[in-house]
Structures are given as structure tokens and as C-alpha cells.
């Protein structure tokens, strides 16, 4: 996994509540057996005027000029600013894969759906919860100033606006540690292999019907 430490990134505002994972990456792209290459199909149904299918040359497709991701001023954005319950719906990890592949490293919203939130951390993508008033303020500032960037520091757990205003954010120690180091979580867990085996042996005794 790609490590995340600090980022000074251009912000793209997506002013919709309840953005679901079907919108983030439509189902036809879930047929891929790879975990990369989803970026060009991020928000496919909003981003293009035609119907997208796997295998199409996305560079030749008609872009929807009214969709915020297509505005020239947001080209290369790395921070997605969103509304409440972002990432609701399916558990598809293709959603964070598509965001990451498109170049996003941070999503800021008043709330996230649980599974999406968790999936982000497995992919070097940092989801940040901020109070609705702060998100409102960031939307206003971002829309008012072209080239609006935010500085995100994971170690310090801070977001800094261009005017120097600083907002803190919460992250569990475990997730922070994994993301800062870009660590292989399976490798970390396997350090507890003996404990897992001991638990399992005890379980096999007390609930033998769970084992074939």
C-alpha cells in the first residue's frame, strides 16, 4: 500500500449528499479481475455523456461539461470535498481504487458510510470527517478561489487552509500507523499467528460444529 504522510493538494468540490458506490464506479467495471485502471471510469455516468463499458477508449468519449470533475480548474485534484454519507451502498473496493487511480489521496466529508471508510485506509486513501459547518466553509472557499488547495498532515492530524486556518481530525492509532508506513496489514496480523491458532484450538473444543 502507498504510504500517506503529508499532502498539499488541489481541492475538487462534489456538492451532493449520499454519493453511493454505484455512482463512484458503476457495476459494469466490476467485471475486471485487476485492482488498477479504474480511474478513467470514476463517476462514469456523471462524467461522460455516453454509456461506458469496459474496454472502451475513454479518451475518445464525450465529457459532460457540467460535471465538476471535468472543469479545467479542478484538473489534477487530489482532495475530494464531499457531503454527508459519502460512499454509501455496496462494499466494492473498486470505489476507493477508482478514486486513488484518478489521483485522489484525501476525501473530506461530514460523514462516510462504514465499509467505504474502512476500505479507503487499505488503499492509501485518507477519509477525513469534519463537522458540517467546516465542510460548508471549505465548499465556499474552494468555489470562490481557483487553485484552492488544502494541506493535510496525517502525523499531526491537521488540515490547513491557504489562509492558515487549521482543523484537526480523528484517526485511530492503528490506521494512522499503517497508513503512515504504507504497511502490509496481513503481515502485521500474522505476527499474531500463534494467538490466532490458540484461539482457534479453544474454539474447536467448545464449538466443534464450526469445523469440518
Amino acid at each position, binding site marked *: 500500500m502507498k504510504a500517506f504522510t503529508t499532502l498539499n493538494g488541489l481541492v475538487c468540490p462534489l*456538492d*451532493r*449528499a*449520499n454519493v*453511493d458506490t*454505484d*455512482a463512484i464506479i*458503476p*457495476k*459494469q467495471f*466490476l*467485471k*475486471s*479481475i*485487476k*485492482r488498477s485502471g479504474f480511474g478513467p471510469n470514476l463517476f462514469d*455516468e456523471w462524467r461522460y455523456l455516453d*454509456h461506458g463499458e*469496459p*474496454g472502451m477508449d475513454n479518451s475518445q468519449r464525450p465529457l459532460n461539461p457540467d460535471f465538476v470533475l471535468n472543469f479545467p480548474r479542478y484538473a489534477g485534484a487530489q482532495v475530494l470535498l464531499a*457531503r*454527508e*454519507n459519502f460512499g*454509501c*451502498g*455496496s*462494499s*466494492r*473496493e473498486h470505489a*476507493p481504487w477508482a478514486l486513488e487511480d484518478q489521483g485522489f489521496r484525501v476525501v473530506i466529508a461530514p*460523514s*462516510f*458510510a*462504514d*465499509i467505504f471508510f*474502512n*476500505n479507503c485506509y*487499505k*488503499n492509501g486513501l485518507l477519509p477525513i470527517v469534519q463537522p458540517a459547518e467546516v465542510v460548508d466553509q471549505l465548499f465556499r472557499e474552494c468555489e470562490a478561489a481557483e487553485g484552492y488547495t488544502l494541506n493535510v498532515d496525517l502525523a499531526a492530524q491537521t488540515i490547513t487552509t491557504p489562509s492558515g486556518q487549521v482543523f484537526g481530525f480523528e484517526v*485511530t*492509532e*492503528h*490506521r494512522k500507523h499503517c497508513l503512515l508506513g504504507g504497511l502490509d*496489514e*496481513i503481515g502485521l*496480523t*500474522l505476527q*499474531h*499467528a500463534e*494467538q*490466532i491458532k490458540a*484461539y*482457534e484450538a479453544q*474454539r474447536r473444543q467448545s*464449538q*466443534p*460444529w*464450526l*469445523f*469440518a
Partner: protein
Amino acid sequence: MTAQTLYDKLWHSHVVHEEADGTVLLYIDRHLVHEVTSPQAFEGLKLAGRPLWRVDSVVSTADHNTPTNDWDKGIQDPISRQQVETLDANIKAFGALAYFPFKDKGQGIVHVMGPEQGATLPGMTVVCGDSHTSTHGAFGALAHGIGTSEVEHVMATQTLVAKKSKNMLVRVDGKLPAGITGKDVALAIIGKIGTAGGTGYAIEFGGEAIRELSMEGRMSLCNMAIEGGARSGLVAVDQKTIDYVKGRPFAPKGEQWDAAVAYWNTLHSDNGAQFDQVVVLDAADIQPQVTWGTSPEMVTDINGRVPDPAQEADPVKKGSIERALAYMGLQAGTPMSEIPVDIVFIGSCTNSRIEDLRDAAAVARGRQKAANVKQVLVVPGSGLVKAQAEQEGLDKVFIEAGFEWREPGCSMCLAMNADRLQPGERCASTSNRNFEGRQGQGGRTHLVSPAMAAAAAVAGHFVDIRSL
């Protein structure tokens, strides 16, 4: 010992290791695997040279991509076929307790197959790379959806890195009126708490109305816990749970059965257990539900009307309603019963079990699909459900009514196979999500119960099943 909720009991009995910040390694008993969210996980194992930690925890089937007709022609879409064949190859290479491949008589939607095989048992932790894994909570199992990285993590370590959720009790008091199903209860709850109302919580559903629900009804309800934001839904174990599990292929037998039942009977919240939040509904108030928008919380009952965004003070909500009405092609104030439908879909992990098909057939019997309805798809949840329905003659009822009787799979719930809406088509659907594009780009989904879907098919528009 302090009184515990059912969720507390399930959680604590699966903790292998706990860190200072409360992050735990949670042991996983059952891992359900399907073709869409597993290939990258198997690939990860291969690259790292890791085996499955416990082969006998894996139960697998192909469901999302499989066609629901012309099975003799195989899977026509080459990308879908590759994904299904990749699962075949991965199960062959890594092993599993059981695998129900495409066309197998046990094949079906993973959340229908698990319970009917007895692969889902009370007291288990059950995970799957699919958000509707919450379904299995109907058995007093701690069950939730996970992403593909977590699928790989469970495959390699038999554990998940997890943080405990908060406890919510949703209590539905009193008796449900006739014709009101688990699906209506689920939609009514989501209408009350919102799609983010359960975020951060495990929801236990309790109260007289829930105890009165069949196992199928409880599965429909827990299935949609995720639509209320909760990764897990739970119903306490009772005699109905135990009766449903008994005799299923992977259920315990003999002495082990008796020991299991003794344990399962402890799987309920203790008297006096504390919940962080309690929501109470009166069953008598629940009417047949119909969604009008592009989020499951955008719901009313059959006697309701499409809402007017001008009445909404919150600007974000107002914008959401305006956008939803534009997408759905609906005018504010329209009575729900005057909305015509083009397509009807009866199926999905929410509503494709035998009881659901019986409910739909009871409405369809002796009636005909309305002339304005282009297509009615009935897609059983599994090969076993299909066989049972055919034994009961339900297939003939549907066919005589002008409905199409299909092979099992996820089908038009998410439209990964060929079953999908065309732009602008309006569908009465027994599935779980009415998101934009969910059933096909530009498609318009209204979520309803199986009986309400069948009623819309014969009336040509939404109609109160109690008036038929």
C-alpha cells in the same frame, strides 16, 4: 456479570487480540466468496505465496455475473465469463468447504445459498465481500460486508482488523397489519432513521412484530440494515431460527446439534442490556412501502404522494429531492398509486426466497400482466428455491400471468448481467437499492415488497395490495 446485548456477546466471543486503541483482531468463522470481489484477493495471496488459513471456512458460489436465461449457451459476455471462470480456477487451486459453481443445482445468490445450506449458523461471524452480508444477522450471527483487501486478510489470517460498533435497538411493537412484510418494515425503518441513521452501529431488530416475522422476513429486514447505514443487522435466536437451521446440509448433527442448540439459546440481549440508541416503531402504523427517489430513505407508503421539494427547509436535502425527482421523472404531489411501471423485477438477496415467491404468486394467480408493463422478471434466489417453487407450481402461476420465470442469480438488482433497465424505464423492484443507474443507466427504480411488485405488474401501476 453486566447485562450484554446480543452484539456485545457475539463481538466479545470472537476477539483474538486487542490493542490499546481498541482495535481488535476478530476471528471469522464463515467466509462467503463470490466472483466479483474475490479475484484481486486470491491474486494477492498468490503474489505473497500465502495459503488460505482455513479452507473449511470458505463457502462459495457465482451469482453477480451469471445469466438468468439460456444457460445452455453459457455466459455470453466474455468479461463476465472470465470473472466466473477465474473463481472456478481459484477455488480449485485454494480449496473450499463447498463450491456451487454456475449451473450447479445449489448455485444461487450468496445470501440465499448460505442460510439454505446451513453454512450460516447462529453465533458465527460471517463475512463476504458484499454489503448485503448483513442478511445473515437474521440468524443471530455477526455478519457484515467487507472490501476486497479484507477478503484477502480473512483468507490469509482468519481474522479481521476491526473496531467495535455502537449498539442500536430498533424495536417494532405490536402486530403487523395483514400483508405487511419484512421488506415494508425495513423500508419504514430506513424512512425513519435515514440511510446514515445506522452508521457506526450494529442494529438489533426486536419487538413483537420482529419475533412474528418468518426467517425469510427477518433475512429481508437484516439484508437492508446496510441501507440504513449499519453494516450489521441482528435478530435474536428463537425456536424459529433453530427450526430453520435443523437438517440443513452444513448444520450440526447428533450430539453436536444438542450442544449447539444449548449455546444458540443464549444468543439474545440480556434483560437490562444497554443500547446507545433505541428507536421504536408501532407495527400498526406500517403500510405497504414504495420508494419515490434515488435513495432508500426516499420512501413513503402506497397512500402517500411524491414530496414537494419546496416544503424542505434544509438546502442540501432540498437539492437531493429536486435531483431525485428530475432523475425519476416524477412531479411533486403525484399520488404513488398513479405512477405507472414499465418493468417489474421480483428477485435479489432481499426478496427471492420461497416465501417471497409465494407472496408474489398469490397476487399473480388468476391475473394477467397489465398491457403497459413490458416485462416481469421472476428470478429465484437459488437453484434450490427454484426447484421448490416448481414443486409447488409457482412457476406455472407466473408464466400463466405473463411473467418470465428465470434461472437464479443477482440479475436486475445490480444489472451486471444482461438483465437491465433501458434509460427512462420505470421498475417496481423487490431489490434493495434505488440509486441512480443501479438497475441500468438511466433506469428508475421503486423498491417494494414481492406482493406489491406483483400487484404493480397486474395493475400496471402501484396499487395497495390490500385493495386487490
